């Protein structure tokens, strides 16, 4: 990659001060997103995938008592590099919503229930483009996100819309500033499967039409294969594998990625015998944040573990060629 990435995370660490001590949810993440590219971060609960995404704009409340360190290099519209980790709150707010927009899992939590969706879109339009006709633009944005009859729907309040419509309205607000990066944190997890398919198609289409980059957070590897160019798999606060999505899903190099892929239930129909019902699990549970094991963090659950995995200080993320990286001592031996 000759061009500098749009967003580069370097040694990102995010800690939360809890009554039981400091918890490091993200522990040394290096990732980048190119302009117009989709990077999916996939992991189970507690892997740090959402915290990684939220750290980019420090979207935490005071009560979270979060501390973000490392570098978050953002390429602004003039091509200059800005370290978001070093920006004060006010300047970070300017970037949020003007260059980087966010869509969350639960649109009801992000929409204001006492204002119509039109009012909320118009506000976003005015904030970023004061000279635009906000009313006309709001209708246009609703049409853009596939809401039928936008002239009428623009006056609807959030509670009058279905979950799928609310998510579309959220996306319209996000698009109001013409962002160059959209962060989508499990945007379809709360939706029914047919609506999920519609939102996934919408995101893919918007991305193509507006040329924006997408940072897509999900627990579902199948969704990753539908939308992402590259994928990063996270486990216990770290990236354990990253690379082009087809290559990683077809030939996972990390035992955790392999295990995660194998966990999806599969049934093979047979005519001459009972069907095969394949239900693979990963033994054990991810480490608790306060009890991260020495060496490889996945070693206690790994099918390919050797003594060295537990005895080394830590396992680093190594480039394994073809734009792929893997955090495993034994990656050279993988089939």
């Amino acid at each position: 990659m000759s061009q500098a990435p749009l967003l580069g995370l370097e040694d990102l660490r995010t800690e939360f001060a809890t009554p039981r001590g400091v918890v490091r949810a993200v522990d040394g993440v290096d990732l980048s997103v190119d302009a117009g590219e989709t990077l999916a971060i996939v992991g189970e609960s507690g892997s740090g995938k959402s915290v990684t995404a939220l750290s980019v704009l420090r979207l935490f409340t005071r009560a979270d008592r979060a501390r973000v360190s490392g570098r978050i290099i953002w390429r602004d519209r003039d091509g200059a590099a800005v370290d978001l980790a070093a920006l004060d709150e006010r300047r970070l707010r300017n970037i949020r919503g003007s260059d980087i927009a966010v869509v969350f899992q639960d649109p009801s939590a992000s929409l204001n229930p006492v204002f119509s969706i039109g009012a909320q879109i118009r506000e976003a339009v005015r904030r970023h483009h004061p000279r635009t006709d906000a009313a006309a633009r709001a209708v246009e944005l609703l049409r853009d996100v596939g809401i039928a009859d936008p002239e009428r729907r623009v006056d609807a309040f959030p509670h009058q819309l279905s979950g799928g419509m609310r998510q579309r309205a959220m996306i319209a607000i996000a698009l109001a500033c013409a962002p160059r990066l959209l962060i989508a944190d499990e945007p379809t997890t709360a939706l029914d499967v047919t609506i999920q398919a519609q939102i996934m198609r919408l995101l893919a289409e918007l991305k193509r039409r507006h040329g924006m980059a997408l940072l897509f957070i999900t627990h579902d590897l199948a969704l990753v294969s539908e939308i992402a160019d590259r994928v990063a798999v996270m486990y216990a606060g770290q990236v354990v594998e990253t690379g082009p999505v087809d290559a990683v899903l077809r030939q996972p190099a990390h035992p955790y990625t392999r295990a995660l892929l194998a966990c999806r239930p599969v049934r093979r129909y047979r005519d001459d015998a009972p069907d095969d019902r394949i239900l693979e699990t990963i033994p054990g549970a991810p480490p608790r944040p306060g009890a991260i094991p020495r060496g490889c963090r996945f070693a206690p659950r790994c099918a390919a573990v050797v003594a060295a995995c537990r005895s080394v200080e830590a396992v680093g993320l190594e480039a394994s060629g073809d734009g792929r990286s893997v955090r495993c001592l034994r990656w050279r031996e993988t089939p």
Partner: protein
Amino acid sequence: MTATPLVETRGLGKVFDLPRDGFGPRPRLRAVDDVSLSIAPGEVLGLVGESGSGKSTIGRLVLRLIEPSSGSVAFDGRDITRMPASQLRPLRRSMQMVFQDPYASLNPRRNVGDAIAEVLALHGIGAAAERRERVAALLTQVGLSAEDAARRPREFSGGQRQRIAIARALAVGPRFLVADEPVSALDVSVQAGILALMRELQDGLGLAMLFISHDLGVVEVMADRVMVLYLGRVMEVAPTRAIYTTPRHPYSAGLLAAAPLLAGRERPAVQLRDEIPSPADPPSGCVFRTRCPFALPRCAEETPPLRPVGEGRQMACLRDDLVF
């Protein structure tokens, strides 16, 4: 199915009254409409559909946790639709439920051994010492250990808590289990373990199951037959393989097309537009027609009956010419 069904419903319906919105008649919501199903001993019937399809309501109706508005429910050949509570109580031992959220169904202040023993005491099973032994055996059976009886729910992971909920459901020796989204709150790496346990128990104990899930992949692995619901009505019911490899109803095809897949199977190219309409105001005729890419004018006038179309399959679609 020639064997006597363990669970059978005929024309089951459930209407909920909604709060009045201004003047006029009180709005009503038909959550379940004319559902007839049967589950043989040891059989797993999968129930799929989007939110508002009525699948959870059906689960509660067949256990008579709520009263039907119409139709009947029979368990083991006995009509339980209007059976008084005193007669129903002994039958409750035979039919149990596992919910989505194991956190909500366990009392945080009691150790899990007591939580399981309580169910045994409630049904007058065994003396105190026997109950303790039975609790230990149940915990082992679900992949935990006898020592876990002394621990509180919060000391367990989500998957372990679901195992405890299963142990509690099994305590009274049921023949029928309603599992309502039992793995939906769990991480994928944990889901398969719970599903494998449920398969094993189903197999070993000959449990019949009504397995409710929005996750088509999970249902495919668990169910012997699958019933597809939309707005409270049955769209299609067929052996699992038939539904998943050759769906006949446009809604079944649309659901399968929408499910994200990693690779391998081809899926039907049916894109469903719009969203499920309000169950308080369902479309006339076929309830699915407003989203159906193949709807004809007469679909608005006629309600398609659920009809047999061969190979143990029934479907409710006027069209016979669709192949997916």
